[in-house]
């Protein structure tokens, strides 16, 4: 069965360049999350999409980070003018959430490892 798919798997970019990371959630999942994981660290929440509601952008570290999602499909995380501190694994997750109770597990992709040189 199809899980959460992320591309590219690895990305090396020069400082100052823009990058786009893609996430294909599980079909039918209404919620989509982006997390950042620095080397040897836990996961930092970046942004959350739920259906057609306004996204929760409270975790985005700066205005160089943005994300889009069209409906309940693909999401793109964009980092502009990349810095070396942006080097990390960027993980995407999706879940099926109904109503006001949050009881669906998150399904994660394999992440994109971003290296800024």
């Amino acid at each position: 069965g199809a899980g959460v798919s992320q591309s590219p798997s690895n990305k090396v970019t020069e400082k100052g360049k823009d990058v786009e990371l893609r996430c294909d959630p599980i079909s039918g999942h209404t919620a989509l999350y982006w997390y950042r994981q620095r080397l040897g660290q836990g996961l930092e929440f970046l942004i959350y999409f739920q259906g057609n509601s306004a996204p929760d952008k409270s975790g985005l570290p700066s205005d160089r980070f943005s994300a889009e999602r069209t409906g309940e499909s693909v999401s793109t995380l964009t980092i502009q003018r990349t810095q070396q501190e942006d080097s990390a694994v960027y993980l995407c997750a999706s879940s099926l959430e109904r109503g006001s109770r949050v009881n669906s597990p998150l399904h994660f992709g394999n992440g994109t490892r971003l290296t800024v040189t």
Partner: protein
Amino acid sequence: AQTVTQSQPEMSVQEAETVTLSCTYDTSESDYYLFWYKQPPSRQMILVIRQEAYKQQNATENRFSVNFQKAAKSFSLKISDSQLGDAAMYFCAYRSGITISTEAQKLVFGQGTRLTINP
């Protein structure tokens, strides 16, 4: 804001033995979920086990079980009969139960425990 603490950066265990990974959390909520995720070198986060806070019975999944102490805000993971394939990073995570705002719907993760299995 909720926080999750894993005080053991690294743990090791002999194959076939039992190991317990610790996790504590801080919250003022009474309705929430707790999770343990495994992250092998492939980077994918794999759900190992989850616990609903309103359930007193500890969750179990085959060789994995938890010791959920709600009053102490403790949520440890026990792995029995450890296998080489259990070697990975293990993350404890917290999530609110009933959400009114999207703020509460994110998973809050601990820093992780790296588990090594010695053959």
